[in-house]
């Protein structure tokens, strides 16, 4: 009875959400099998999947997307954790001034992309400052960050957006750790690093995992920042899919949908591994 009443309460929210999700998924998978999109499709059901998986560009794009997602989410976790810990260690009266770190959270992704462009392109502000403040040679030797084959500008933009998010999430947990616990660790002889690693980090583990998954999956599928800051070869999967969908023949539609389905399956696998991992942690934490 209880379950029924709970389901009834959640239905207005769940039904439209589920319908939308199921419809989108169904249409994507169906079109990847060749149904619905192309009238004279002659391949087998898995024909487009076979083509996509054999396509070296898809593999290259996939690896590039994975690199961008991993580097930006791991970098954000690392820098964000460092910043959050430094803020936590500040005296209470100073902490209020640090709320400025939240600013990038409210900036739209596209704004951040242009900001990076203005700052780090060849004629951007940073090389210009290097020219005036250091030397013309310094400006010339400034590394090519925009449209770089390693995607540094994309990673930089994601870091700018995501580090504050990590700080925000971690600070909530860090502020729950009593000062006396940190004092105890110090009194027992632990230095700052040991205190962080042994006392603080285990408490942050859950939030770090959750934030990592969110950031990783977001940057894997995001479009706006790679569109402005990325180059065409290698490009991220999202850009390739966009181009194939809007800029190529309708005959390629099953290939686009197969790519989308594969991305979805990858995310699903990723979430599955994550859930398995957190389940193990949850059982550990029940003891805690």
């Amino acid at each position, binding site marked *: 009875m209880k379950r029924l009443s709970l389901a009834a309460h959640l239905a207005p929210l769940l039904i439209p959400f589920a319908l939308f999700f199921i419809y989108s998924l169904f249409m994507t998978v169906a079109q990847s099998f060749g149904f619905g999109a192309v009238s004279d499709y002659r391949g087998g059901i898995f024909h487009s999947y076979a083509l996509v998986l054999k396509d070296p560009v898809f593999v290259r794009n996939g690896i590039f997307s994975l690199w961008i997602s991993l580097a930006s989410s791991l970098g954000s976790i690392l820098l964000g954790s460092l910043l959050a810990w430094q803020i936590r260690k500040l005296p209470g009266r100073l902490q209020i001034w640090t709320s400025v770190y939240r600013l990038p959270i409210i900036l739209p992704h596209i704004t951040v992309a242009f900001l990076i462009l203005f700052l780090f392109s060849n004629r951007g502000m940073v090389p210009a400052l290097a020219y005036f403040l250091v030397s013309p040679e310094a400006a010339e030797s400034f590394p090519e960050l925009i449209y770089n084959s390693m995607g540094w500008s994309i990673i930089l933009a994601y870091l700018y957006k995501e580090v504050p998010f990590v700080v925000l999430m971690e600070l909530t947990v860090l502020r729950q750790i*009593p000062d*006396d*616990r940190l*004092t*105890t*660790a*110090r*009194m*027992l*002889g*632990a*230095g700052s690093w*040991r205190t962080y690693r*042994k*006392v603080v980090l*285990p*408490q942050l583990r859950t939030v770090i995992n959750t934030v990592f998954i969110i950031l990783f999956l977001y940057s894997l599928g995001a479009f706006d920042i790679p569109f402005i800051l990325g180059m065409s070869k290698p490009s991220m999967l999202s850009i390739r899919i966009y181009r194939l969908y809007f800029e190529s023949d309708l005959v390629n539609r099953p290939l686009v949908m197969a790519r989308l389905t594969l991305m979805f399956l990858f995310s699903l696998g990723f979430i599955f591994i994550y859930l398995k991992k957190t389940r193990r942690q949850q059982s550990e934490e029940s*003891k*805690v």
Partner: protein
Amino acid sequence: MVNNIEVRELTKNFGQKKILKAISLDIPKGEFLSLLGPSGSGKTTFLKILAGVLEADSGSVNFPSDLKQSPVLVFQDFQLFPYMSVYNNIAFGLQARHRPRKEIDISVREIASKLGILKRLDAYPGQLSGGEKQRCALARALVLNPQVLLLDEPFANLDKNLKNETAQLLRRIQQDFKLTLISVTHDQEEAMMLSDTIALLIGGKLMECGLAEQIYHRPRSLEAARFLGQVNIISQKYQQYFHLTEQDTVYCRPEDLEISDNPNGTAVIEERFFNGRVYRYLVKLRGFPFEIYSMKENLSPGDSVDLTLKEYFQFPEELDQKKSLEQIKGTTYET
């Protein structure tokens, strides 16, 4: 060569608020001292300064010159590391000192066995009872072999039955490890149960320091006396009744007054309570109230009784003050 812990003119302010006001105190090596005072009197601040986790604004703390390990403070809520097992909590300090793994293992098991938590080494703090948590926190401190152990409100998180057991444990630990143990509490009963010597801290000022009995029966000020327990004031008006010949007001504890049944007695019982151990009588003598603790159970409100004073005290500071005032008056008169 310093043999005691010497505290000299220790002062600490938080903003405009004076927390410690020039505290000077000598704590002999191997002593079990209870720092007693109401909430907000600066006890924990004093303890934190001794532990070196807080800096005093002025004054000094000198430890015995043969002190090898700095004092360890055990916080009121133990501050165990929740994501570590009891074993790792205890081993934490030794691991931070990069001791060999085998040595750590032997030390952890030895101390855990002494404190009766050997079987709980694999448990996490969240799975321990209040008493076990305290033992774990004590073991974590004692494994480092400190000569000075500081305890912040060691009974605060324990139920009444555990308090006695813990008091015995702490006394045993102090003797076994030859520790100088300084404990902070706001409960005078706890302080007396724990230690022989008590330092009374009120409003950031050290009111007195001495043997528990002496402080209770011979306090130096009314404020201190009242913090340690109920005080009856016997002004000059009532001294004749008690056959006293003192020039000034005298004071006594409720147990220093004896009550005896007398239908023609001058005092009348107003109220009677039983607190589980003794009867507490509220008696009025010519309209002035007195509180008396007695084992007598056959008296009721409205009964007339006689009161006998067994013991009393006066405050030397009050007497000194009066004497110097009289001297000033005398000098003025003479000139």
